[in-house]
């Protein structure tokens, strides 16, 4: 029985030890537990993530674009999904920030820009900025290819480039660290409820503040990434077709003879 209890204690310690840090080993009551928790909470990107749920952060499913199914996995399934496994995701499940840049030669740039914006609106996108004939739009990533094709149909493509920035690892890493930070905050709240000394209460509250700010920062970053992934950015410049040079103007001779005889040419050349 004693041996069984010993094994159970060892397994429990291994399961929670990494998160609790030195707190479990501290031999001197509540003060030590507070110090241990403070030491165990994650501090910035260097914190060591362990496990946790990814998506209880308010990022809605639509905002995740094509990677929705993968990242909506329950917390226990997501546990162990580290950066290494993120690198092994197939392309269709990766979180890609897509961007396109085109220059199209058209007869009437203003009309072409209007037609393009109507198309973007039909795709559920919106105009982000406009500077003369250059427009930048955001649109749902599933319509990105269709929007590119629509632009190409408007005129002759002078320049085209597109890029996809993979943010899967950063997104996954943020999710893990967020989960760890939330758990740490819950434990700090428990400790705070039990704390009796003013010094302990102040320490825990200070750490709670820092942790809350960190959580909010990570949540904001994740929402930003999710938005970037869900909505592709497309910049299009509509260039006017170069007009042929106008034919040389035939000057109409003055009907008054004397006017034809005056001028700087006659003064400088035939004086």
């Amino acid at each position: 029985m004693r041996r069984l209890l010993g094994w159970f204690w060892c397994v429990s310690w291994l399961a929670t030890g990494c998160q609790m840090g030195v707190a479990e080993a501290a031999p001197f009551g509540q003060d030590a537990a507070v110090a241990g928790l403070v030491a165990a909470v994650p501090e910035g990107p260097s914190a060591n993530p362990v496990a946790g749920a990814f998506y209880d952060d308010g990022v809605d499913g639509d905002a995740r674009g094509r990677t929705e199914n993968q990242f909506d996995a329950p917390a226990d399934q997501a546990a162990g999904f580290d950066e290494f496994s993120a690198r092994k995701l197939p392309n269709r499940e990766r979180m890609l920030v897509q961007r396109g840049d085109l220059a199209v030669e058209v007869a009437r740039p203003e009309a072409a820009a209007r037609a393009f914006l109507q198309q973007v609106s039909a795709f559920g996108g919106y105009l982000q900025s406009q500077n003369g004939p250059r427009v930048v739009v955001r649109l749902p990533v599933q319509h990105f290819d269709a929007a590119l094709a629509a632009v190409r149909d408007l005129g002759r493509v002078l320049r085209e480039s597109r890029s996809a920035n993979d943010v899967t690892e950063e997104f996954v890493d943020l999710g893990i660290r967020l989960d760890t930070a939330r758990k740490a905050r819950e434990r700090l709240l428990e400790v705070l409820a039990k704390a009796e000394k003013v010094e302990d209460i102040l320490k825990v509250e200070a750490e709670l503040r820092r942790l809350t700010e960190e959580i909010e920062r990570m949540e904001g970053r994740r929402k930003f990434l999710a938005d970037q992934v869900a909505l592709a950015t497309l910049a299009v410049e509509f260039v006017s077709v170069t007009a042929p040079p106008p034919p040389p103007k035939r000057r109409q001779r003055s009907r008054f003879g004397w006017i034809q005889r005056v001028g700087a040419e006659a003064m400088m050349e035939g004086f």
Partner: protein
Amino acid sequence: MRALRQGGLWLCLFAAACAAPMQPPPDFVVLRDRGEGFRAVTADDARLRVRDLAEPTAGGIAFWSEALRADLVQRGYEPVASGEARGAGGQLGQWHEFAANVQGERVGYLVAVWVVEPSVLFRSGGLRVVEFAAKQEVFQARVDAVRAALRTVRE
């Protein structure tokens, strides 16, 4: 004696008719003061010319001035300034100043015009045109003096 008086009068009238049509600024040397027109130049090649051109006078100064300005603008001259000019007799004329390119050089050009009514004795009436042209920097240095000399133009 009477014949002498009449001859003297005719001589005075003839001399008046043949007098130079304007007094150019001091730096100008008159090359020709009758015949096809009055011409004067400076040492730095500023050129001044006065001509009488036969045209109907019915249009008046406003008409001819605008006809001249519009034609020069159509030729590519860049209008710089315009104004009224009063000749020696106080008759109203009009001047226009332009910038133009002649044979790849930047040139200043000033033209003033008066409507000359027909005279009983010598003139059939028409337009008196004063032109001043020079390379841009020479023109700039002399245009004020020429514009002032327009007051000496005999209409």
